C-alpha cells in the first residue's frame, strides 16, 4: 500500500519540489489517478482548509499549498485527457461582477478539478450574461459563484435571475460561496447550495449531482 504521507505533508507545507517528485513517483508506480487526487491532494488541502478556518494558518500558507497542488495537477491533467478518466460533471466557476477577489475561487476550482469535475474557470468580475453564455456553451451541470465583498453578493442573485430568464435555470445547479456568503443567503436567493470552504465544495458538488 502506498504511503501518501510524504505527498500530503509536502502539499501542506507548500513544498512544490517535493510534492512534484512524490506525484511523479506515485504515477510511475502506476497508482490510480483518482486515488492520488483523493488521498494525496484533497486530503492535504482539506487539512489546509481546516487549519485556515481555525486561524492556525493564514492566506499566504494557503496560497503556497495551492501552488504545490497546482504544479502537481499539471502532471496529472494530461492523463485525464487520455480518456481513461470519466468526468464527474461540468462546472463553470467565476467570481461575480464587480469583485476581483480570486484566491478562494481558485482553490475551489482546483479542488473540484481534483475531485474529478471538469472545470471552466471564467476568472473574476464575471457578469451574469457571461455565466449564462458559458453554462449554455459547455452544457454545465453546476455553476459555481464566488463573492468576497458584501457589495457584490447581490450579483449572485442577478445571475440566478439571468439563468431563469434564459430558460436554463432548471438545467444547472447553482452553488455559491465566499467569506460574506452564508447558508441563509443561499436559501434567500434560491441557490441550490452553499459551501463554506473548498473541501466541502467538492462534497456538495457531488451531492448536487447525486454522485457518492
Amino acid at each position, binding site marked *: 500500500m502506498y504511503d501518501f504521507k510524504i505527498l500530503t505533508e509536502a502539499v501542506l507545507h507548500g513544498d512544490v519540489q517535493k510534492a512534484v517528485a512524490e506525484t511523479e513517483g506515485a504515477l510511475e508506480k502506476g497508482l490510480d489517478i483518482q486515488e492520488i487526487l483523493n488521498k494525496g491532494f484533497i486530503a492535504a488541502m482539506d487539512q489546509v482548509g481546516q487549519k485556515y478556518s481555525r*486561524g492556525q494558518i*493564514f*492566506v*499566504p500558507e494557503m*496560497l503556497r499549498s495551492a*501552488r504545490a497542488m497546482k504544479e502537481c495537477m499539471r502532471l496529472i491533467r494530461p492523463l485525464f485527457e487520455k480518456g481513461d478518466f470519466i468526468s464527474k460533471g461540468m462546472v463553470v466557476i467565476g467570481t461575480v461582477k*464587480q*469583485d*476581483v477577489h*480570486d*484566491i478562494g475561487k481558485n482553490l475551489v476550482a482546483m479542488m473540484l478539478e481534483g475531485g474529478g469535475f471538469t472545470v471552466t474557470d471564467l476568472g*473574476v*468580475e464575471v457578469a451574469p450574461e457571461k455565466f449564462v453564455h458559458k453554462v449554455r456553451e459547455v452544457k454545465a451541470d453546476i455553476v459555481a459563484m464566488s463573492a468576497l*465583498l*458584501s*457589495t457584490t453578493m447581490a450579483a449572485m442573485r442577478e445571475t440566478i435571475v439571468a439563468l431563469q430568464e434564459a430558460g436554463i435555470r432548471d438545467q444547472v445547479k447553482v452553488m455559491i460561496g465566499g*467569506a*460574506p*456568503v*452564508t447558508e*441563509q443567503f443561499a436559501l434567500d436567493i434560491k441557490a441550490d447550495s452553499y459551501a463554506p470552504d473548498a473541501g466541502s465544495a467538492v462534497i456538495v458538488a457531488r451531492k448536487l449531482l447525486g454522485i457518492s
Partner: protein
Amino acid sequence: MRVYSDITRPINLIACGVFRSALAYLKLEKSHPTLRVRFLPSNLHLQPQELRNTLSKALNGTLMKNERTVCLYGSCFPDFSDFCDHHGVDKVPGHHCFQMLLGSKRYDNIMKEMVGTYFLERDLILHFDKYCLEPLALQEDEIRRAFFKPYRRVIYIRQPADPDLVPQAEELARFLGLPLKIRDANYSYLKQTLVNLIEV
C-alpha cells in the same frame, strides 16, 4: 428640529480604528455631549471571526449598563446586521470603510469606472507593513503578483486632516506596480449617516 429620544442617555459609539481621524475631525461630541467613542484595532479585519469575537466582547460590556450603543463598522464579517440586532445595537449603514469615507455614490462610480481599484487611506498607509505586507507576505514577489494581478490602480482616499501621505502612497503604489490616483473624502456621507443614527 429633531426630537431626541433621551438626551441624557449615554451613547457609546464603538468604531473601527480606521475612523479615528474622521471622528476627531467631525467632533460629534460637541453637538452630542453624551457620546462616548471607543475604537477597536483596525487590523482585526484580516480575520473576520476574531473581529466578531472582539466586537462581541466590547458590546457585551456596554449592554450591562443602561446605555445606547451604536456601531461604526461596515459589513466586515458575514451577517453583520443580524449580529447587531442580536446584540440590540444599531449599525451605521455601509459595506466597508472605503465606501463610507467616499460616500456610496462616489464609491459606486469609482467601481463602475474601474473595478480593479485598490484603496488606501491614512490608517492603511501608516500601518501597511503590519496590516497587509507581513500577514499577506506581500514581500514575496510571486505572492504579491498573485494577490494584485486583477488590480489596475490604487486610489488614496485623502481625508481632511491627513498629514502629507502622498509620497508614502506613491511608494506603496509603486511597490504594487500600479498607478496612483487621489480622491478627497469630505465626510458628508459619513457625518450624515452617523448623525441620523445618533439622533434617533
